[in-house]
């Protein structure tokens, strides 16, 4: 199904023919984001270039009862930008201008289509940067970060996207343009901005973001602790924090990922290690070495066989490249893998990791782990064969069971990837009907007709059976 001729005609009038597409190749390309397990082709794709154009298109959709879905770079891992119900995809890449870097107020005003890393690059000459740094930061956009409340390795000390966004401009599903926040750190009244960040594109389409910039630390020290047991590495994480040290990042990579990373980029991680811990300290250069020494002692007390300190910026960059490209590196082991995202209390890391490995084993999978250990934010990676129908079926089950393990441990369904389409059916395990109704009531203030990104976050009762059928399909390319 493509655009109805009259709708297409009006869209072309607003945007020009170049920016309205519903050919088969486009529809196929936009059938999913980075979660490729639940593909659904859109009615069509539009590429607005200005706020006025976007408002006009949204009013047209609203008037005709057509659902629509905003999309950034399509790097989301929970299916938040998948166009269920033949929704129109609103591709925001043309909103890619950095309008202002305000050094005195430490803010940047950017379009939602600006790539995350580009903000930091623009701010860096002023000694500032944009803190959220998801692994996909070379590709993902600020608008997507706002939608998903993205995190990254450095959230332990600095927080997630919501802590670094001061203002938003957005278009509501009826075409109303609203502004939330600004350059001040807060406004009188309820924190609507905080509610909107992380609402996964179900409240409005963001057209402008005021980012809070942070001073680049004077010195960063990156250490690599090498461990012969995952449990020892986990205990080290807890001990570092128990000693009153809050590193900028505390990331763990297990043996399977070490193997993959070494094949992929040759970062120099020891292949016979069971786990490595990346520990990053950021502060003034004075005194930071003493802190590093304390960490070294804690690692040793937990049986680290080696603790390396990156000697220079090149070595530091190599360690971080290995971490940030770990997902990609898994491709050397298996062309298909399923990435999960769950959170647990940090102190329960050792036993939960064991449970997850055992869960994978029951289904014949070797689950790999690379995760934000300081936050207890797990990213189990499940390599599988996308051509094997049984494998596809089982990988869903393992993913679901892993999340149930996280919930049983007192954790949550997602730390940074969002609920999207992928986990909507599990929301009832976290929140009762009253809790969900309360959240849905909030959505109705912005999106009363559920035209914007329908079927995300909360299961739509009328589509439950349909979802199960899709999830049961086999042989979906990943």
């Amino acid at each position, binding site marked *: 199904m493509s655009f109805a001729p009259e709708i297409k005609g009006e869209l072309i009038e607003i945007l020009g023919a170049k920016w309205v597409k519903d050919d088969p190749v486009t529809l196929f390309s936009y059938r999913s984001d980075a979660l490729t397990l639940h593909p659904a082709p859109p009615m069509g794709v539009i590429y607005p270039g200005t706020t006025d154009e976007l408002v006009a298109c949204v009013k047209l959709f609203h008037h005709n009862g057509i659902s629509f879905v905003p999309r950034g770079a399509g790097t989301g891992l929970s299916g938040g930008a998948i166009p269920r119900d033949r929704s129109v995809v609103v591709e925001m890449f043309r909103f890619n201008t950095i309008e202002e870097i305000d050094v005195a107020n430490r803010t940047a005003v950017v379009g939602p289509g600006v790539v995350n890393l580009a903000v930091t690059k623009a701010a860096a000459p002023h000694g500032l940067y944009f803190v959220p740094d998801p692994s996909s930061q070379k590709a993902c956009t600020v608008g997507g970060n706002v939608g998903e409340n993205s995190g990254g390795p450095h959230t332990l000390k600095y927080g997630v996207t919501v802590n670094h966004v001061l203002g938003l401009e957005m278009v509501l599903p009826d075409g109303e343009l609203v502004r939330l926040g600004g350059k001040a750190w807060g406004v009188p009244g309820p924190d609507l901005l905080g509610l909107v960040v992380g609402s996964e594109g179900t409240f409005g389409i963001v057209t402008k973001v005021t980012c809070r910039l942070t001073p680049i630390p004077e010195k960063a020290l990156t250490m690599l602790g090498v461990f012969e047991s995952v449990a020892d590495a986990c205990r080290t994480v807890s001990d570092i924090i128990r000693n009153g040290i809050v590193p900028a990042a505390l990331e763990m990579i297990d043996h399977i990922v070490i193997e993959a990373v070494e094949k992929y980029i040759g970062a120099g991680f020891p292949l016979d290690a069971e786990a490595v811990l990346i520990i990053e300290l950021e502060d003034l250069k004075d*005194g930071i070495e003493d802190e590093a020494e304390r960490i070294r002692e804690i690692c040793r007390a937990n049986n680290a066989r080696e603790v390396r300190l990156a000697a220079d910026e090149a070595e530091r960059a190599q360690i971080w490249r290995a971490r940030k490209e770990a997902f990609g590196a898994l491709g050397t082991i298996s062309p298909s893998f399923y990435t999960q995202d769950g959170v647990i209390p940090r102190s329960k890391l050792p036993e939960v990791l064991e449970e997850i490995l055992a869960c994978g084993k029951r289904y014949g999978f070797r689950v790999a782990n690379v995760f934000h250990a300081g936050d207890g934010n797990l990213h189990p990676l499940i390599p599988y064969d996308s051509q094997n129908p049984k494998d596809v079926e089982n990988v869903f089950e393992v993913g679901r069971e892993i999340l149930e393990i996280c919930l049983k441990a007192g954790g949550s369904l997602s730390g940074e990837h969002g609920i999207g389409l992928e986990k909507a059916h599990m929301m009832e395990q976290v929140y009762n009907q009253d809790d969900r109704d309360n959240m849905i009531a909030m959505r109705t203030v912005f999106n009363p007709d559920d035209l914007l990104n329908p079927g995300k976050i909360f299961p739509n009762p009328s589509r439950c059976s349909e979802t199960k059928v899709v999830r049961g399909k086999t042989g979906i390319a990943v």
Partner: protein
Amino acid sequence: MKAVVFQPENTEEMRAWVAERIAAGSPFHISSRSRADDDLDVLSTSHLQAEQFFEPDDMVIGVESGVPMVQLQERLAAKGMTLPVSPWFADDTVGQMVAANRFGPERMDRGGIRDWIIGISYVNGFGKLVKAGGRVVKNVTGYDVGKLMVGSRGGFGPIATVNFKMMPLPVNPLGLYCGLESNHWLKWLAEDVLAKRLPLDWVQAVHRKGAWRIGLGISGNEARQDRLIAELQRAFDHQLHKADEGREPSEYNRFSSETRQKGFLSPTLPDDGEARYHLHGVVPTGHLIGRPRLMECLTGLDATLVLHPVGGDFHLIGRLESLTEEKLDRLRRHLAGTGGYLTLEQTSPELLESFGYSIPLPSEYPLMQRMKQTLDPAGVFHAPFYEMV
């Protein structure tokens, strides 16, 4: 008829009472205090003081909303932890801090109370006890309802419990202080401290009767402190003296973390029993310290000014009779174009009538009103903030 004050002993009692009020369509105040100030009934959360959980190893705690902030900090400190958010006054409770979005001088680097909430429960406008978030430090499961409740001023229902993430206590905290008369130090702060990106734990300045008392908080090991002290002394023309967090007798003790945790505004309150006003401003940092005329206006009022220049907020506290429409109007003119706001926390009914609670109204105010109408359909949660034009 005399107003009723209801003080539930637990959250279920609170829910049942609120549900009855919703069914009857009877509005009431939500307060942490146990008295009624006018003829409207009061729901007081003062007896909700249970600890839900405390896991120092996971850096998380959950408490009922009536727990005084001072008590919460004491519990955390006993385990080497802190919530880097100071209450305004000694009797501030957790629920009050959240509902009124209170934060202190630590916000500059670590954020306000909004940045530490990981879970919340409250009784909503349908009489249900609802929850959002959880007990882990990172969580994007569903909407961040905890954020919506920050600054909600009781408009969406009484808060039952709040879960926080926390931080280890700062290592070797130290205060550096000085007294100055002119506003020049703000230029020093901008050019020699902020531009050099020196990591301070907190900054607070108090202006009273023509003079500033300035405090800068630092922490860390010896090498780190030595460097910071040297840089700050250079920036402040070697006028700073250090105090070991208020342990020596000093007029600067009011800046110490001990005092801050008991309400950093409490020492500024007049003890003569006179009616006072309290204005709270938030202004982008660069505009707050970079606009001399705004600062002249703030320091020119016959009031105590408590300033947090980094992060951008200030409090003005003075005798109520000294605040006139003309003075407020002048302040409004100076704030115009800064992107800042002034909240009339405490003032006369006449000034409230003329200016409303917020100068100017936030651009999202209509959305806030819509949210209030949707989430409180019976209109029982009395919150004048939502009743401005």
